[in-house]
Structures are given as structure tokens and as C-alpha cells.
């Protein structure tokens, strides 16, 4: 393998990894507070991609307007999801919450299938992202370079909110102890709604970039990125935002490089990610950067 090809693969891996990271952050934030795997999180990617398509094609909005709009609407959907599927079950057994999450995920996918049809749609990728440029002698699409940059900027914003604002402080408190947080006069439902808003908006950003990278938008497009991002979140240590980012990059890089070095494994790529998950859970259940798990029931 020549060094240019290796560099190319590394760039691809970082790009894919940053997408996983964006989606993984949402999983990790919700899990940190509710101890719930939000199964419907992956489907938010799909919703964001479709919304962006319809804003551009149906309402003829420029991408600079329609992409942020899609991100915002997905955030609202995240809040609605919490409101409809999870909030009524706050005091229910964990298994009910999980089943509700699975139901919500199937509902979103099949509603999309019924309303929008199963035929994959192309994505109106703006010209700006389609240009091909030279980076250290490797020809790559601009999008591949922009993706990690956007991820970094969004991550900075998120870290600012979580560690430098009052809302963020309340979120961190809620992830440690529900009851005490409530006793401190914090409106928990509001904090959880904001968590869903932020997580869903990041997932939407990931979804739009995913759709530009693989321009085939269909009702089930969110399932696999969702599962992979979840694995990334566990790998990094669930409940830890930086961990989710590290896990995302590691998983993305790992997937691309393994297939690059051993092409015969290409068809096992998805199975390998699950193997990573199982190994992590077997040998280091708290992930790379996670704190010891606290049972919060």
C-alpha cells in the first residue's frame, strides 16, 4: 500500500468517524440522563435528510437556509419524541421504556415509508461541497474535509453549553442524581427536553452530512449509522461526551482501515463493529473514558 492510498483512507476514516461521533453524542447525552438507549435516535438522521431534501426541492430554499431549518425541525422532533414516547414512562420499569423506544423507531421508519415511499431519493448536495481538491497529493471531495471541521465546531459549542452554562450544569447534575437535582429546584422535564433538543440537532447535522456523503435517502437509512454510533458511544464510555467523540473517530477509522488492509473482510464490516461492542462490554464495560456505572433506579 502506497502512502497516498493510506493517507486517502485515513482521511476517509476521519470523515466517517466524525459522522459517527456527531450521532454518538446524542446517544451518550440521553443515556447519561435517562439511562435509556434512544432507539429512535438513528431515525432522526433520516428525518433530517428528508426535511433538507424537501426544503430544497419543494420550497426552493437555498441550502444555507434549508439545512439549518432541517436541523432545527429535527431538534423539535426530538423533543416531541421525548414528550410522547418517554415522558409518560419516567417511573415505569426500564424494559417498558426500551420497548417504547423500539416502537417509536419503527413508527418513524414506517410513517416515512408510507408518506414518502420506499424509493431512495437523491440528495441535492450543494456545489460547494462537491468540488474535488488536492490535499498533500491526495484528491478528495471538499465534503470529506469539511465534515470533521463542522463536527469540531459543533462539539466546541456543545462543550460550551454543557460546561459553561447553567443549563449545562443542570444537565450534569441530572446525570448524577435525579432526586437531588429536583430538590435543587431544577425543572427536570425541561432539562431532559433540552438534552433531546441538543442531541437531535447534532444527529440532524450528522444526517445531512451523511446524506451528502451517501446520497441515497430512504426511510431506513438511519438504522445502521444509528447502531454504529451507539457502538461508538459504548466504546468511548457511555455518558461521556468526549468519549463518544473519541469512540466515533476510532470506530470510523478502524472500519475504513481494516477494509483497506484486508479487502476480504469488506462484507463482514457490520459484523465486526458488533464484535467490537461485545469485546468492549466483556473486558471494559465502562468504555475507554467512562466512569464506573452508577445504577440510578
Amino acid at each position, binding site marked *: 500500500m502506497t502512502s497516498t492510498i493510506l493517507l486517502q483512507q485515513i482521511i476517509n476514516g476521519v470523515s466517517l468517524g466524525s459522522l459517527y461521533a456527531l450521532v454518538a453524542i446524542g446517544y451518550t447525552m440521553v*443515556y447519561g440522563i435517562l*439511562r*435509556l*438507549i434512544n432507539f429512535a435516535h438513528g431515525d432522526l438522521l433520516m428525518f433530517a435528510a428528508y426535511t433538507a431534501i424537501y426544503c430544497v426541492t419543494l420550497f426552493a430554499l437555498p441550502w444555507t437556509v434549508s439545512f439549518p431549518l432541517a436541523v432545527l425541525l429535527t431538534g423539535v422532533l426530538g423533543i416531541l419524541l421525548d414528550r410522547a*414516547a418517554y415522558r*409518560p*414512562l419516567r417511573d*415505569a420499569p*426500564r*424494559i*417498558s421504556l*426500551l*420497548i*417504547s423506544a*423500539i*416502537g*417509536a423507531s*419503527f*413508527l418513524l421508519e*414506517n*410513517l416515512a*415509508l*408510507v408518506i414518502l415511499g*420506499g424509493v431512495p431519493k437523491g440528495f441535492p448536495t450543494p456545489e460547494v461541497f462537491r468540488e474535488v481538491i488536492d490535499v498533500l497529493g491526495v484528491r478528495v471531495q471538499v465534503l470529506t474535509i469539511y465534515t470533521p471541521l463542522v463536527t469540531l465546531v459543533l462539539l466546541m459549542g456543545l462543550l460550551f453549553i454543557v460546561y459553561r452554562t447553567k443549563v449545562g450544569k443542570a444537565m450534569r447534575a441530572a446525570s448524577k442524581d435525579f432526586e437531588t437535582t429536583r430538590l435543587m429546584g431544577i425543572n427536570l422535564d425541561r432539562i431532559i427536553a433540552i438534552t433531546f433538543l441538543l442531541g437531535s440537532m447534532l444527529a440532524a447535522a450528522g444526517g445531512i452530512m451523511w446524506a451528502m456523503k451517501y446520497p441515497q435517502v430512504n426511510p431506513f437509512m438511519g438504522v445502521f449509522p444509528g*447502531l454504529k454510533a*451507539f457502538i461508538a458511544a*459504548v466504546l468511548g464510555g457511555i455518558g461521556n461526551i468526549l468519549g463518544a467523540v473519541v469512540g466515533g473517530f476510532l470506530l470510523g477509522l478502524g472500519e475504513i482501515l481494516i477494509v483497506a488492509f484486508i479487502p476480504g473482510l469488506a*462484507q*463482514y464490516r*457490520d*459484523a465486526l463493529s*458488533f*464484535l467490537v*461492542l*461485545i469485546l468492549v*462490554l*466483556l473486558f471494559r*464495560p465502562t468504555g475507554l473514558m467512562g466512569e464506573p456505572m452508577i445504577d440510578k433506579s
Partner: protein
Amino acid sequence: MDKARRNLILNTLAVAALLGVLLAFDRFGTDYQVRILNNMAIFITLAVSYNLVNGICGILHLGPNAFITIGAYTSALLTLSPAEKQMTYIIEPLIWPLSVIQAPFALSLLAGGVLATGFAFLISFPVFRVRGDYLAIVTLGFGEVVRVLCNALQGVTNGPLGLKGLPPYTNLWWSWGIAVITIILVTRLINSSFGRAMKAIREDETAARAMGVDPFRHLLLAFLVSAFFSGVAGGLLAHLITTISPTLFTFFLTFNLLMMIVVGGLGSTTGAVLGAALFAWGGEALRVVESPMHFGFFTIPGIPGMRMVVFSLLLMIVIIFARRGLMGRNEFSWDRFLARIKLVSR
């Protein structure tokens, strides 16, 4: 007459009545009706065995589709004749021992169940290291791994092309026979000391452990029994639809099973039976929403996929507003049934 004897007689009568109904449908029913009844029996087998893990032990296991896949492929590979196998495997020939052996249907079902159990045993060590959401995602992962392997191992499974032209061995006697056997064996297991230990683990694992119950051993037992019957049902399913491919055994199948046991009432075998029967019947009845509807002058074209929307909504509504489902954790009992009847006739 003592109660045990009375219940035995009533149970025998109930099975005899079932036999009568099946005989009537076998003779006079249309193909469509027989098909639905077969589906119903297979779903009952699957739901009852799935409920043993999810309802009785209270852990959310999301990989029954893996066991069903293994059972289906194993039994299909055993009943196909060597000549047919040679014709089916066009891309890569079938590996040696499988390409020459052929077994009777009963043996192939048994082999499917045993292989599924073996697989369950292998994955049980990583699976039961974790609990709750993690267990759900790990089992979901194993389900996906099996599907990926089915697509990839062309020398065994014929890859995405799947297997065609299986002999249609599954009939009402096979499917309902196995459903009844499953119900009897699983109920006996639940009512034994093992079953009580499983319920104790469901309520509070730490307390159960303090009482000397070994969670791993009991969860493993439930998992293996569940896998065995899922494997057998997979074999039945394969020989009912006669064509199998990896796309048949996705997470979708698991979702449907989950819906049956949630609607029936998590933790109730009776509920699982009712849920499965309702699903088999309701799935057909709901075809209405997918076919074109006529209102005088206008026609609404049929919308494929509408049934799944209804199903997922139903699942969410049940879990949010009526978490106990139809049966809660109650079981059918002759005592209550007879009391109810007397109440009605009075």
C-alpha cells in the same frame, strides 16, 4: 372429584376440541384459512418461547431472529435432496458433508432446535455479562451478525439468493402439535422451582442472589429452552413458506414477536398465545388498510406499509397506557373460567 383430576380431564377435552377444529379445517377449510392457522401455530410457538426469556426472566433479549434463522437453515439444508442442493448452489457449491446428507422432517426440526440451542449457549457468556439496555443491544448485535454471516457464507447458506423449493412438509398437525408441546413444556418449566427462581430474578436480581439463586444458571436455562423452540419453529416456518433468504429474518421478525408478547401481557404464557393468535389473524384482517378504498366516487389507493404503522402505534399505546397488556401476568385457569361461566349463566 379433586381439582387436579378435573383439570386433567378439562385439558384433555380442550386438546380434543382443538383436534376437532383442526380436522374440520384440514378437510373443509380453504388453503388461505389453513395457511393462517399454520402461521398462528408457529407464532404461538415463537411467542411462548420468547416470553420465557423476556416476560418470565424480565430481560430484554432482541435476538430471537438469530435462533429462528439457524433453525430454518439447518432444517432446510437437511430436508433438501442432494440433487436439488446441487442445482440451487450456483455461485459456490455447498460444502461437503451438507451436500450429501438428507434427513426426515422430524429429525431436521430437531437438528434445527439443537443447533440454535448450541448457538445460544455460545453467545450466553457475553450476553449475560451485561443487563438491561446493554443486553438488548448485544443480542440485537448477534441477530445482525447471524444475518451478515448468512449473506456471506455462500458455501453454506447460498448467500443472499437463499434456498428455494423446500418440500412443504409443514401442515396443521406438525405446526399445532409443536405449539401444544411448547406450551405444555414451557408452562411446566415456569411452574417448577426453576420458573419461580426466574421470576425472582425478574423482580430483584440482588435479592434473588441473596436467597441463593444463581442468576446465570437460571437465565441460561430459559435462554436455551427458548432458543430450542425458536429453532424448531424456524424449521416449521421454512417448510411452510418453502423459500428462505436472509431478508426474511431481520429485526422486523423480532419486533413482531415483541409486539405479540407485549400486547398479550409480558410474563403471561396465555398472553403470549393470545398475542400470537391475534397477530396472525389481525395481520390478515388489517390488509384492508393497505388495499384501495372506495368511497362512492373516489378511491384512495392502497398504501403498502400502513400495517406496520398501525402495529408500531399499537405497541406504543399498549406500553404507555396499558402496560399490562391483555393478560398482565395472569394465566388462564379452569377455576376462574368456570367461575366466570357460572356468573354469566346465573
